[in-house]
């Protein structure tokens, strides 16, 4: 099954509503409307549950919307938050704050375990496994009534108070929930804007390409899972206080389904969409009351219609309306500093040691009856541009996959500056300095050009997840530096003016260049390019050739798989030739041209070549 399909985000409306701190004010204004209108009435109760459920739904947007991981287990963390705190407070007289913290710790631990166990599963399987977690939690709560109170609920949770003021009214809980929601939105926004958010969106688009950029995919997924679980746990703890007597029915599967519905009706990848969805899901039954038994069918119909005509949810629909007045390629003002030479720092590949930088020895891979790569050995010296050529099906791309760790070799060894690469995961290989591009550019279509480059640069960042979540000045500064470097790289490949354009909007030739720029962001010591000239016209190929030579001048080591002989002859220092998975020749471009084996491989028979 293919990975999650690339989702083309609409237009970049985020700038509109979320400029600076503007949105927080908007949020607070909107949040106070229900309080002012309905503060003393029963309707407040519905708004309180809307707020609490929204917190969980927002966390679902992080993990399902942005992260593409379909999870149905968050009511489990919601329940753990309420019950662990409740049991500690009611049975052991533990102070509420401590209870909430312990509950959070338990949730994080559970999220870590479940995350590590299940995140390598594909979509549906992952969903079912997380659903299982939610079911098990409810069963455990119901199964030990002496501790949890069972289905009659957990009695005896003390009433909380803040600075001596008891918290008991709907209005008080509403504001607490609203502030928690606000915090959740801020943290969520920071996450999405940070490299963690970028990496998770990249993972959702193309997991393999992301790992070959040096991003530890599994670790990021688990981190996100734990982050969203913490939302649910904290919300659950306060919700448990609000309920006074939490029961398993408050955290059962119908609640989970409601929350997922809120997310999708509201709109994924918006963060605030789930709040809209929560309002609709919770209020629709109130409005529908007159229809009696027909209500269920009519509600179902409404949901279907919304999902059909507003697939990006209500929030997505609203955003589309608001973005009408803007063109999609409206760029942010970019520094007009095109004359400054690009400052690039590679891992020094100076010819300090005599040993070759990349040493490939006896690498083999068999797929069933086909020996795709058979005992291939060659060297690539530091600062060299090595071309690998051969007819179609010769095993060139397979070789790249073996080198970058995407496929595990049956035998052989690959040494990069003395470090063995065989057996390492793709992200580890990339972090050691070996990156690659693909035959068809695998970009992150829903992100902008500069965001794509920034994902390539992920491994260089040092600020931690927590630092990014609260956006301490150091992490913000790091972002800025990173952005400058990324722009410099775009300058190098000539895409500077397209920095804020969506990658999906680029023409083919520019996509290639973007992929190269992204690969260079690490920065690598060796870059492997898989047929970079394919699909380019003559002038684009010339531009490419110039770029490759320029990179070599700067000290980078390049390995090139190519079919275009003119380009190969122009740029390559050495050429290796593969045929049927075997290495048939390895030497200077001139020698290769005349090599009888090579000619036979391409043309099928011996042909005398006139001396050029």
């Amino acid at each position: 099954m293919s990975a999650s399909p690339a989702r083309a985000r609409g237009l970049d409306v985020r700038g509109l509503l979320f400029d600076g701190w503007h949105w927080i004010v908007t949020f607070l204004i909107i949040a106070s409307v229900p309080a002012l209108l309905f503060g003393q009435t029963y309707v407040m109760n519905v708004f309180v549950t809307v707020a609490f459920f929204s917190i969980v739904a927002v966390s679902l947007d992080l993990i399902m919307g942005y992260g593409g991981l379909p999870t149905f287990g968050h009511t489990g963390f919601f329940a753990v938050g309420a019950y662990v705190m409740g049991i500690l407070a009611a049975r052991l007289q533990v102070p509420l704050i401590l209870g909430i913290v312990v509950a959070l710790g338990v949730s994080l631990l559970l999220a870590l375990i479940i995350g590590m166990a299940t995140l390598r599963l594909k979509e549906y399987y992952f969903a079912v496994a997380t659903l299982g977690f939610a079911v098990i939690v409810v069963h455990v709560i119901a199964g030990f009534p002496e501790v949890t109170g069972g289905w009659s609920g957990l009695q005896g949770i003390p009433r909380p108070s803040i600075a001596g003021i008891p918290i008991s009214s709907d209005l008080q809980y509403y504001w607490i929930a609203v502030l928690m929601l606000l915090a959740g939105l801020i943290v969520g926004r920071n996450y999405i804007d940070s490299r963690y958010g970028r990496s998770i969106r990249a993972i959702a688009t193309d997991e393999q390409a992301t790992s070959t950029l040096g991003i530890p995919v599994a670790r990021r997924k688990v981190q996100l899972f734990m982050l969203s679980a913490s939302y649910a746990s904290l919300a659950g703890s306060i919700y448990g206080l609000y309920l006074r007597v939490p029961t398993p029915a408050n955290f059962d599967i119908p609640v989970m389904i409601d929350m997922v519905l809120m997310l999708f009706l509201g709109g994924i990848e918006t963060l605030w969409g789930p709040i809209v969805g929560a309002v609709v899901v919770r209020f629709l039954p109130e409005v529908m009351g007159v229809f009696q038994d027909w209500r269920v069918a009519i509600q179902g119909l409404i949901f279907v219609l919304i999902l059909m005509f507003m697939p990006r949810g209500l929030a997505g629909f609203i955003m589309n309306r608001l973005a009408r007045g803007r063109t999609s390629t409206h760029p942010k003002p970019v520094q007009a500093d095109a004359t400054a030479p690009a400052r690039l720092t590679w891992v020094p590949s100076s010819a300090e040691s005599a040993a070759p930088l990349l040493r490939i020895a006896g690498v083999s891979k068999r797929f069933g009856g086909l020996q795709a790569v058979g005992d291939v050995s060659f060297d690539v010296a530091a600062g060299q541009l090595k071309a690998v050529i051969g007819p179609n099906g010769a095993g060139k791309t397979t070789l790249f996959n073996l080198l970058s760790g995407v496929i595990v070799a049956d035998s052989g060894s690959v040494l990069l500056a003395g470090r063995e690469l065989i057996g390492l995961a793709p992200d580890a290989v990339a972090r050691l300095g070996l990156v690659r591009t693909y035959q068809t550019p695998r970009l992150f279509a829903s992100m902008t050009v500069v965001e794509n480059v920034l994902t390539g640069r992920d491994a260089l960042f040092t600020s931690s997840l927590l630092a990014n979540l609260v956006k301490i000045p150091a992490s913000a500064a790091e972002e800025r530096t990173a952005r400058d470097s990324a722009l410099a790289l775009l300058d190098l490949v000539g895409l500077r003016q397209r920095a804020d354009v969506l990658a999906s909007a680029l023409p083919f030739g520019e996509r290639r260049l973007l992929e190269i720029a992204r690969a260079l962001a690490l920065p690598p010591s060796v870059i492997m390019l898989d047929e970079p000239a394919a699909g380019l016209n003559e002038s684009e190929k010339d531009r490419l050739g110039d770029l490759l030579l320029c990179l070599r001048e700067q000290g980078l080591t390049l390995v090139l798989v190519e079919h275009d002989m003119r380009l190969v002859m122009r740029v390559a220092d050495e050429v290796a030739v593969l045929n049927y998975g075997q290495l048939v020749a390895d030497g200077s471009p001139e020698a290769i041209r005349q090599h009888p084996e090579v000619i036979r491989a391409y043309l099928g028979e011996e042909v005398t070549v006139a001396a050029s």
Partner: protein
Amino acid sequence: MHRLARQLSGVVNMPALHLHRFDRLAKVRRVLAVPAVLMLAAMVACAPSSGGGGGGNEPIKIGAILSTTGAIAGLGTDELVGAQMFVDEINGKGGINGRQIQLIHIDDESKPENAVSAAKKLIQQENVIASIGPSSAIVSASTAPIFLESKVPDVSAIGDFGPLNPYLFSLFPITGQGVVALDFVKQRNLTKFGVIVQAGPLAESTRRTTTPDFEKLMQMVAYEQVQPSDTDLTPVLAKIRSAGAEMVLNPMTGQQAALAARNFKQINYPGVLIVTAQNANAAFIDLVADAADVTNVVGTKVFIYQDLPDSDASKAPLTDFATKFTAKTSRPATLVSNIGWDMMLSLTEAIKTAGTDREKIRDALETQKGLQTLTGTINRSAQDHNGMEADWILMGVDAANKKFLLKK
């Protein structure tokens, strides 16, 4: 439909909704427009009606939180009909002290969150003096604290409600069912019984209230729980059989009660099957099918009112109720529908003596004694907020004629 869909999508993508000037204020206005519209809709939906239990000729408002949709829809629907029938009758006779009763029903969709907001709406907006329902323990656990805090008396349809709550009363009959087992125990020298029940609040309350009656007579050797989605109960019944149970107690609800009966027959269980009539109805008879001959149902007299001797005092009111109920719904009357009626009866009796003061109504409910209802007699006390002593009878199933039979 396809053309309609295309037309609709055309409307939705109207290009005319263009923004002329794209400034921040316009942005904020448009963003606020959405929640404003939603607020408006909510306000319209939640528009309060006239106030509550004052004096004069204003109606006495009583709330009813009953699940007419969702998992336990069958319960709430019948309860509502029974309750409404009572209200219609008492209003026809002039109401209470000259004031009509207004029953305000809200469906909680079998979900506790909805029941909580329904309770708050009834108390704060409709200003009900008391309420009936919820229909099940799953839901009432969440509404109980609300009635307690608002000091509003509530007569619910459940049989058991966990820890005692001063404002919460119930009247689903839960005790005394062991009496029908007496004969079996004596005749066949039964010493061991097992229970098969659905996991959840029903299992909990059965353990607390129903099985003790039977444990006075026999030893309980198995207590097995099943899931509502189970399609075959033969393994669990075989497990109970292995434990040596000579009688199987089946207090389940819904179609699974019938499934258990069918499975009981399927494995030729060497023993007696007792099904408690939690929601036995015509559907149950249909579903039991071939297992009718081994099925003994503990029920109340409403199921076989036609076979009661004329000397039985409950025959007349039950016949009256049943004929009216069937006329309304084209279904036979059931215990659950009686519960609906009885909830209103118990409550209105309290209102008759105590007036419309909530505290006095509460006290009156707590001290209700000797009240004859369709289901049985209510004798409450401060320790027992249920107090329903049902006239339990043992019934068989007459599959051919699609009805219950009075046994012995």
